[in-house]
């Protein structure tokens, strides 16, 4: 077997976990609330920059930043959903409005942190260089933790959706919001909570990105090409699907990078997106639903 290829596959699986965390928020709001929220990209970016800032100025371990980032992301999601509810936007308007929000945050980020590349200093960031070997294959700790979080989110959301009243309400809203409302579910409250949760996931993805990548405001444009294939392939609103699709995209991009160079990765992910749209528009990991 080819060692380089094995390495690419293992790294791809792990980075796929990160892709899943990045995508799960967008997938949830799109699938359940019918809101395509491009502002999630802003909150991934903000999560990363806030982590960078806390580590650099206060000398915090990047993972401690989660204490700030998770509530912050939750609050942002709540505010956004309240705004969407008050403005009564439809799916299509939400796309344009959140695009406007995204552009504003893009500019704000560039103003605060400039367009230069920023990276957490190695002294305060032990995860970047930390790795161990399984046989000949190196495992980067930063991506391993991200993968663990992705698995935890997938399991946690599955439990939440199947075992709790909140989850039952969410599933009822997916089926039919009007009937759910008629049966006494406070749709607005569920929506606000879910949006908060989804945005917190996105912000968490930002923390992990900050642990092993250089940050620049424009990197968020590149995420579009990763997150949308994952969301479509995984199936809208499916957290387990996002994890599976994240791994597929991560492995495909990783193998493409080792075989044809780093620039071919976005081409491959795009082809996956097209293939997914052509052959399984409902996603690989969801059963053929009522739609």
């Amino acid at each position: 077997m080819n060692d380089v290829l094995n390495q690419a596959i293992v790294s791809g699986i792990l980075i796929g976990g990160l892709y899943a965390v990045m995508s799960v928020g967008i997938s949830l709001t799109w699938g359940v609330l019918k809101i395509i929220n491009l502002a999630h990209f802003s909150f991934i970016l903000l999560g990363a920059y806030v982590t960078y800032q806390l580590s650099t100025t206060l000398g915090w371990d990047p993972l401690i930043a989660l204490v700030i980032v998770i509530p912050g992301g939750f609050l942002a999601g709540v505010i956004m959903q309240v705004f969407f509810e008050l403005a009564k936007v439809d799916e299509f308007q939400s796309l344009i409005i959140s695009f406007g929000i995204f552009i504003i945050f893009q500019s704000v980020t560039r103003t605060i942190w400039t367009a230069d590349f920023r990276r957490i200093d190695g002294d305060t960031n032990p995860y970047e260089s930390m790795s161990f070997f399984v046989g000949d294959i190196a495992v980067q700790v930063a991506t391993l933790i991200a993968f663990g979080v992705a698995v935890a989110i997938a399991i946690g959301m599955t439990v939440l959706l199947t075992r709790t009243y909140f989850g039952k309400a969410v599933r009822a809203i997916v089926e039919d919001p009007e009937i759910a409302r008629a049966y006494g579910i406070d749709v607005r409250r569920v929506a606000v909570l879910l949006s908060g949760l989804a945005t917190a996931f996105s912000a968490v993805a930002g923390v992990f990105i900050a642990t092993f990548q250089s940050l620049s405001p424009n990197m968020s444009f590149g995420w579009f090409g990763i997150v949308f294939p994952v969301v479509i392939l995984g199936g809208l609103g499916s957290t387990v699907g996002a994890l599976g699709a994240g791994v597929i995209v991560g492995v495909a991009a990783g193998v493409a990078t080792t075989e044809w160079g780093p620039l071919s990765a976005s081409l491959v992910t795009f082809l996956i997106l097209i293939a997914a749209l052509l052959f399984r528009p409902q996603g690989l990991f969801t059963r053929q639903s009522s739609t």
Partner: protein
Amino acid sequence: MTSRTKSLIGFGVVAVVLNLVPTVVESLDAPSFYVTFMFTAFFWISQSVSWNILTGYTGYFSFGQGAWFGIGVYTTGILAAKHGWPFLLALPVAGVLAGLGGLLLGMIVFRLRKQSGEIFALTTLAVAFVLASVARLYSFIDGGRGIFMTGTPLPAFLGDFRTAMFRMTFVVAFLTLLTAFLLYESRIGWGMFAIRDDEPVAHGLGVPVFRYKMLALGTNAFFGGLMGGVWSLQIGFVTVEDVFNIRVPLFVILMSVLGGLRHWMGPAFGAVIIYALTDRLNSAGLEDLNQVIIGGLLIILVLAVREGIYLRLRARWKPALAVFVLAIGVWTVFDLGSSLIWDFFYASLLTVAVALVPLKRQPDTAASPASEAMAASDRSPP
């Protein structure tokens, strides 16, 4: 005389008048940035009007304008600058290649089993990123080195660089507007509007849905690429970052949403206003604020003025015209603005404000049917 003939005569008159502008500006010894201002406005008019042929007419929202623009820029860049083709010969190739790119995308996306506007929008968003990475990857396109366009020879009959740019952008913008107008007034246009309003019903009534969507996407891509081809000269040094960024699709969406997607003139109107706004903000040294304002405007407009400013102003054209003329008059007489462009800018801002004032309070639910009725009533059958 039908309204269509009248409009066509209007097109002719506007063409003749505008064609004289560079000569007049030169003979008046006026600052030459008037010419630059106008040909940049033509660029945006063409981009947003062509975008509207797809998105406004058929209702398929596209983030892909940057892709068609980019194909155009790189086609003339490669053919004219790298291989020494005559520029005017490379130009139509740019349009055709972009058009073919549009048709290729349409072949894939419009044949999906699950038709959805959102899926289409996100796919077009991805196209530009893919083209960018392809351009970086292959050195016969760019390979990360960029292409120098400065010094590309232009035929002598076009005049000096500014005049040549003015004439070329003008011709492309004119053709785009004419196409948009003719489509709007034609049976095909009606078919496209039917697709926008309710695609399954349109299909059921015998509208060739797939063909019309392909036509709209192809036309959009063709003109986007054609104008992109011209614009490579203005860019000067073509790089992937300059071409395949979010700027073109973002501005085109904003301009069209502001102007209004339901009329062929709307996006042209929005293009002039938004371009004047950003141009003035930039010259006042507020580039950083620019994006924040653009993003904020987009949000407000989507929520507040769904039918766009053009139709609103049309409905109350008397007060709007009065405000515009009055503003220009006051600013010129008291010499408030530092140049004619500033005067024009303030006057249009005030006019836009006229459009934004809600005269009659409409209940929330009645807002959109009312605007639809308004959009429908000001069109005569072909």
